[in-house]
C-alpha cells in the first residue's frame, strides 16, 4: 500500500493558484525525488502534506497519509501528526535550530511533545537518535550548542530531530543545498541508510537533478505547480518524454560552446601570496592569534583563458578573490596584472583595478535596492579618470545592457523588478561596462536554477569569445567548473593542492583531496543499462 498518496491536489493562496492537480505517491522504504526550479511548487506540495501552508491557502483534492485523510484532519490532529508521523529536514541548518538550546534538548523536545515520557527517557532516546544520525555521544555530547557544530553536523541534528520518533514519512526539502559537496555526499548517504533501516517513505525535494538521480527510486518533475513527468529514476532519465524534462536534463549537463583559445601571455600573476587574519585573543590574557586564510598561493592566468578555482567553504577562495581585487592587502607575495602590482605602497592601484571586475553569487544582495539599473551598472565608471558623460554614458549603459541580452529601457527600472537570472545579467553588465580584461566570477551561477544557469554560462562563453575576456571562475560546483574552464586550481585550507587542465584534473585527480571532491560530486549518468536498485535490495 502506498504510504503517502496525493491525488489531484490543487492549492491557491488568496486566489493565486500555486498547485494544480498534483498527483504523486511514495511507498514505505522508498525515496521519491521531487525536482523543479524555484517557484515550481515542490516545497508547497511537501508543506501541504504537513498542512503548514501560508495564511489564506486553500487546498482541494486528496492527501492520504497511512490511511488518514490529511485535508479533513483538525488542527489538534495535525499537530499530533507533525513530527510523529511526518519528519522534516530543512535546507538551512543554521536557522532550523534554536541557537540558545543544546542539541540534546532540541531533539528531546520532539519526543516530549508527542509522548508521555519522562525527561530522562526523552534524553536517552534523543541520544539514540543522534547516534543514528552519526553524532555519537562520546564525540558530540548532547550539551553542545548549535554554534559549536559545523554545517553538516547541524544538519545531522536536524535529521536526528526528524527521525527521533521514527516517522513513517520523512520530507527532506533541499537538505544538502547549503552544504559543501563532500558533506552533501555524507548526508545523502545517511538519509538513504535511515530510509532503509526504518522503512520510512522519503520525499527528497531538490533542484539538482544529479543529487536526486543518485538517491531516489522514483522521480517527480514539477513546473509551475504541475507535475510534468513522473516515473522510476532509470526509466525516466533514459526515456524522457516531456520537453520540459528534456530541457531540464539538457541544462543540468550543459556545456557552453567556447571558441577562444588562451594565448600564452600571462595576464594575472599571483606569487607566494599569504593573507593572515587576526583572531580574537583567547581569554583576557591570551595572545592575539592569526589565522592564515591564504597560504603561499602562486598561479598565473593566461590572457583569454578561463581558470577555475574550486574548494569548499572556508578554504580561502573568497579571501584570495579580495586580495586579487585589491580590496585587502596581503602579508606576503605579489599580485600583478599585466606586470603591474595591484597594491602599490599600501594603496590599491587604480590603473590596475580598472582592468578587472567581479560578479558575485547572490543576485539579490549585489545591488543597492535604492538605485536604478543605469546608476547601478555605471558604478565602475568611478575607476576611470575621465568617465563618459551625457550621451556617451547613456550609450555605454545601453550597450552593456544589450550585450547581456537586456534592453536599454531596463536601465530606468529598479532592481527588484528583475528575476534572479536577469539580475545576474545586470551584474555581468556592471562588470563589462568599463571593458575589463579579467572578470572574477565568485560563485556567479550557484544561486540560479539549472536552466537559467545554462543560459548565463552560454552568455559568459559568448562574451568571452567576443570580447576576449579572461575569467577566474570560482565555484564549489565541479560540473559547472568542468563545463566552462580550461584549467583548474583546487584549493584546500588556504593552499593550492592541485592544478592542471580541467579535464585531466577531474578525470585523473592526483591529490587525495581532489579525489575526495570528485568522488563526492553527484554525477548525472544516463545509462539505460543501469541496474535497478530495488531488485538488488529485494
Amino acid at each position: 500500500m502506498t504510504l503517502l498518496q496525493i491525488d489531484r491536489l490543487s492549492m491557491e493562496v488568496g486566489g493565486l493558484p500555486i498547485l494544480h492537480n498534483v498527483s504523486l505517491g511514495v511507498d514505505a522504504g522508498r525515496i521519491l525525488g521531487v525536482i523543479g526550479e524555484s517557484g515550481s511548487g515542490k516545497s508547497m506540495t511537501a508543506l501541504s502534506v504537513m498542512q503548514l501552508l501560508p495564511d489564506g491557502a486553500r487546498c482541494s483534492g486528496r492527501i492520504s497519509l497511512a490511511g488518514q485523510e490529511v485535508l479533513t484532519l483538525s488542527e489538534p490532529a495535525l499537530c499530533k501528526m507533525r513530527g510523529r508521523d511526518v519528519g522534516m529536514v530543512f535546507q538551512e541548518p543554521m536557522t532550523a535550530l534554536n541557537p540558545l538550546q543544546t542539541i540534546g534538548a532540541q531533539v528531546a523536545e520532539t519526543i516530549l511533545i508527542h509522548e508521555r515520557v519522562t525527561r530522562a527517557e526523552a534524553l536517552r532516546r534523543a541520544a539514540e537518535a543522534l547516534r543514528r544520525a552519526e553524532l555519537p555521544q562520546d564525540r558530540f555530547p548532547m550539551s553542545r550548542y548549535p554554534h559549536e557544530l559545523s554545517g553538516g553536523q547541524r544538519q545531522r541534528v536536524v535529521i536526528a530531530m526528524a527521525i527521533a520518533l521514527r516517522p513513517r514519512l520523512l520530507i527532506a526539502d533541499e537538505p544538502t543545498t547549503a552544504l559543501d559537496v563532500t558533506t552533501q555526499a555524507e548526508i545523502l548517504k545517511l538519509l538513504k541508510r535511515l530510509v532503509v533501516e526504518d522503512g520510512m517513505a522519503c520525499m527528497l525535494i531538490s533542484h539538482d537533478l544529479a543529487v536526486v538521480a543518485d538517491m531516489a527510486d522514483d522521480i517527480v518533475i514539477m513546473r509551475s505547480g504541475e507535475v510534468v513527468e513522473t516515473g522510476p529514476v532509470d526509466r525516466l532519465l533514459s526515456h524522457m518524454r516531456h520537453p520540459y524534462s528534456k530541457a531540464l536534463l539538457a541544462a543540468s549537463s550543459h556545456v557552453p560552446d567556447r571558441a577562444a583559445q588562451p594565448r600564452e601571455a600571462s595576464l594575472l600573476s599571483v606569487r607566494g601570496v599569504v593573507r593572515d587574519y587576526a583572531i580574537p585573543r583567547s581569554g583576557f590574557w591570551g595572545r592575539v592569534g592569526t589565522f592564515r586564510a591564504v597560504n603561499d598561493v602562486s598561479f598565473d592566468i593566461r590572457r583569454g583563458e578561463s581558470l577555475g578555482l574550486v574548494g569548499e567553504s572556508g578554504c580561502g577562495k573568497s579571501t584570495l578573490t579580495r586580495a586579487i581585487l585589491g580590496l585587502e592587502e596581503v602579508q606576503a607575495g605579489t599580485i600583478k596584472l599585466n606586470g603591474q602590482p595591484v597594491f602599490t605602497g599600501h594603496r590599491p592601484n587604480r590603473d590596475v583595478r580598472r582592468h578587472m571586475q567581479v560578479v558575485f553569487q547572490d543576485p539579490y544582495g549585489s545591488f543597492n535596492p535604492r538605485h536604478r539599473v543605469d546608476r547601478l551598472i555605471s558604478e565602475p565608471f568611478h575607476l576611470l579618470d575621465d568617465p563618459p558623460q551625457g550621451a556617451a554614458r547613456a550609450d555605454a549603459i545601453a550597450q552593456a545592457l544589450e550585450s547581456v541580452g537586456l534592453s536599454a529601457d531596463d536601465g530606468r527600472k529598479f532592481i527588484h523588478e528583475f528575476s534572479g537570472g536577469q539580475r545576474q545579467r545586470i551584474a555581468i553588465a556592471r562588470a563589462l561596462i568599463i571593458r575589463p580584461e579579467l572578470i572574477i566570477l565568485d560563485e556567479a551561477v550557484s544561486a540560479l536554477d539549472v536552466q537559467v544557469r545554462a543560459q548565463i554560462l552560454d552568455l559568459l562563453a559568448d562574451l568571452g569569445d567576443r570580447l576576449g575576456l579572461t575569467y577566474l571562475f570560482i565555484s564549489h560546483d565541479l560540473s559547472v567548473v568542468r563545463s566552462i574552464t580550461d584549467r583548474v586550481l583546487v584549493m584546500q585550507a588556504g593552499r593550492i593542492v592541485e592544478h592542471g587542465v580541467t579535464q585531466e584534473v577531474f578525470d585523473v585527480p592526483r591529490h587525495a583531496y581532489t579525489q575526495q571532491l570528485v568522488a563526492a560530486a553527484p554525477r548525472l549518468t544516463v545509462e539505460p543499462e543501469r541496474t535497478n536498485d530495488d531488485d538488488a535490495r529485494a
Partner: protein
Amino acid sequence: MMLRAGLTIMTQLRSLVPGAALTLLFAGAAVLSLFWTPYEITSLDIANKIKTPTLAHPLGTDHFGRDILSMIMVGARTSIAVALVAVGIGMGVGVPLGLAAAAREGSLLDEVIMRGNDLVFAFPSLLIAIMITAVFGASAVNAIIAIGIFNIPVFARLTRSGALSLWTQDYVLAARVAGKGAARISAEHILPNVTNLLIVQGTIQFSLGILAEAGLSYVGLGAQPPTPSWGRMLADSQTMISLAPHMAIFPGMAILLTVLGLNLMGDGLRDLLDPRLRRTGR
C-alpha cells in the same frame, strides 16, 4: 506575494493616514498660531477665569482667564520647534558619527565615538537637562540643546548598527571594487539604506522630544512665561485639577495625540519609503 503586498499597503495606510492627519492637525495649529489665534494669549480676562468650554472659548479658560485653545495652539509651536530642532541636532551629529564608526569598525575612531556615546548615555537625561538649564538659565533654547544632546547617541548607535550590516552586502563590495572610498560609499550606499531606520527613530525621538519638553517645562526649566507650553499648562492646572479638570485634560490630550500621531506616521512612512514595496505598475 501579491497578497502580502496588498496587506502591507493596507496596514501602512491604516497607520499613515490617521498618523499624518493628527500630526498635520497640530503642525497646522502651530503654523496658524503665527498669524492668528482666537484670543491674544497675553490678554488676561479675570472676569472669565476658569470657564468650562463654551462657544466663546471652545476649550475653556484658565485661572487668568486666558483662552486654552489659543494657548494650546501657541504651545504646539513651542513643542514642535523644540522637538524638531532637538531631533535635527541628534541626526545632524549622530548620523555622521555612526556612519564614520561603521566605516572604520574596530578602529580607534570607532572606539572613541562609541565610548563617547556610552558616556552620554550614562547620564540621566533629565538631570543633565536640569544641570544645563541651571548653569545657563532656563529657556527654550537650553531645553533644545539638552534634549538634542541626548538624541545624538541614539542616532549614532542606530546608524552604526544599521550600517554595519549593510557593509557586509555585496553591493558595497561592488562599490569598493569600483574604487569608491569609505566616505563615498557611506553617502551613496549606506545612508540611503538606513533612512528607513532613521525616519522611524526620528519620529519616535520627535515624540520623545515633545514629552521631554513638556517634562522640562513642567518643572519650570523649559520655555519661560509668557510663552505658553503644554508642560507648564499641565503644571499650572495641577493645583486646580478637581476644580477645573479641563485645564489639565486639554493640554494632556494635545501631548497624547501628537505623540500618538507621530508614532503612527513613523510606521506608515517606513513602509511607504521602501522601494521594494513601491508598486511598479508592470
